[in-house]
């Protein structure tokens, strides 16, 4: 037991000592680690923000189902309940004639011609409307198909802005779905490719650092050091690369995020400001970076020196 504690203590001591006595090499290695981790942190945030922007766009899409004048309130209620039990439906809301008129007036308040024209009529020409939002924008087709299967469909529904043929809502939704899917998969591919490149560069830098230790490693073996005794300090050094890398890259990330937060918010309306997102998720982002940084540091160091542990 005493020996194990002593060996751990010595590993830590020599890990720091190696780091300090090779300070230029350590700075170079840590810098590469900083770049990698900064990139990763930045990817996480960008990914999250674009996701949010897409979700906010998605929530603005809905379909309007116009109800026939003749439908009794209890039948409308039944129809609404039918729609609500469709699994893909997120919300469905009944807009009665008065409310529809109010919305109409609000929407076109800048356009007196449209407002006046509706006031010329004796009766309210706007139909009762069911506004349906799906859980995801890909579900609208399914929902519409299911609505059409409603037994009293013909008697209830006048029309919809989502039906076959020429249809603005349908086209918008389809377009949006395409954009969302492409953005997500392209974004994912870019993140994976960049991460792999960053990780390879870091690995290679650490490998070069360890290459400079190869003579030391051979000497240690020759004077009777065991593999654990040799690897211990390099293990600690790997941790140091990861910890310093995380710390410095996080500082840089905070500065960059606060600088670009406002411009980005103006660019993507409806998204949470970057700085707020970073602030709310600081713990998880730093933890992910620390985890990757330390794993990369230890993994690369140990993997690299294994090549020199031959004699």
């Amino acid at each position, binding site marked *: 037991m005493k020996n194990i504690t002593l*060996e751990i203590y010595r590993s830590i001591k020599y890990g720091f000592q190696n780091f300090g006595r090779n300070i230029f090499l350590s700075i170079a290695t840590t810098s590469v680690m900083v770049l990698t981790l900064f990139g990763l942190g930045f990817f996480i945030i960008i990914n999250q923000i674009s996701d949010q922007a897409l979700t906010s766009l998605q929530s603005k899409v809905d379909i309007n189902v116009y109800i026939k004048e003749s439908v009794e309130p209890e039948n409308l209620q039944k129809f609404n309940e039918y729609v609500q039990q469709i699994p893909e439906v997120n919300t469905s809301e009944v807009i009665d004639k008065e409310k529809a008129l109010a919305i109409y007036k609000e929407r076109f308040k800048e356009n007196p011609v449209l407002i006046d024209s509706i006031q010329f009529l004796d009766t309210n020409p706007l139909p009762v409307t069911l506004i349906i939002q799906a859980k995801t924008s890909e579900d609208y087709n399914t929902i519409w198909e299911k609505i059409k299967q409603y037994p009293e469909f013909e008697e209830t529904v006048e029309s919809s802005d989502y039906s076959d043929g020429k249809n603005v809502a349908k086209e918008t939704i389809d377009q949006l779905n395409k954009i969302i899917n492409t953005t997500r998969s392209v974004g994912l591919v870019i993140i994976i490719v960049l991460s792999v490149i960053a990780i390879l560069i870091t690995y290679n830098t650490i490998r070069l650092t360890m290459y400079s230790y190869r003579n030391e490693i051979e000497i240690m073996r020759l004077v009777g050091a065991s593999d654990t005794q040799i690897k211990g300090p390099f293990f600690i050094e790997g941790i140091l690369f990861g910890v310093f890398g995380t710390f410095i890259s996080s500082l840089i990330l905070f500065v960059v995020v606060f600088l670009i937060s406002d411009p980005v918010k103006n660019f993507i309306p409806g998204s949470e400001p970057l700085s707020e997102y970073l602030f709310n998720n600081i713990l998880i982002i730093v933890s992910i970076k620390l985890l990757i940084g330390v794993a990369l540091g230890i993994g690369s160091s140990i993997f690299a020196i294994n090549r020199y542990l031959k004699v």
Partner: protein
Amino acid sequence: MILFKNISKIYGDDYLALNNINLKIEDGEFIVLVGQSGAGKSTLMKLITGEEKPNQGEVYFGNNRIDTLKYKHLPQHRRQLGIIFQDFKLLAQKTAFENVAFAMEIIGKDYLEIQRKVPRFLNIVGMGSKANKFPSQMSGGERQRVAIARALINEPRVLLADEPTGNLDVFNSWDIVNLLLKINEQLKTTIIFATHNKEVVNSINKRVISLDRGNIIRDSIEGKYII
């Protein structure tokens, strides 16, 4: 006791470094290995440290067979040896003190014992005043003294010295040789000393084993440098 039984070692496809060597070295002996470069001196040493394995034959260290030792058991074996190299092989990142201390740390000695023993050994080799110097701040002779202190610090049964004077001037060479003789005499440490230095061999009157192209051509008590 070190015993080589029918040892042959071939490098690559056909370079015969040792050819059917049989050799017995008793405890406390001082052995001088002579021969030209490529005669097989270093290979013989490397068989003792386990750096190389023979293609044929058996190597014994005491009662243990070492040519079949597994990689993970080599450290344990090497801790019984002290090794001095022509190129010193000091750890560049460590001071003289730390280099010597490292050998003690490996076998799990504690701080107090290290603090007590290392300065004593550095004094023995005449490096007491330069304990905090790094190898890059020392001369060749000084580095070799530190290496000797490191080799001796754990009081090994056997000291291997592979051309320890090869990179040193005459004055430093004699110092090192005298140190080895003293160690052999006072501590009864077995010493295997490979050298090119004819003058040294002829004046110390120890057992000389002459190697030529992988064969032992002469083995004489109180021998001379003859090839």
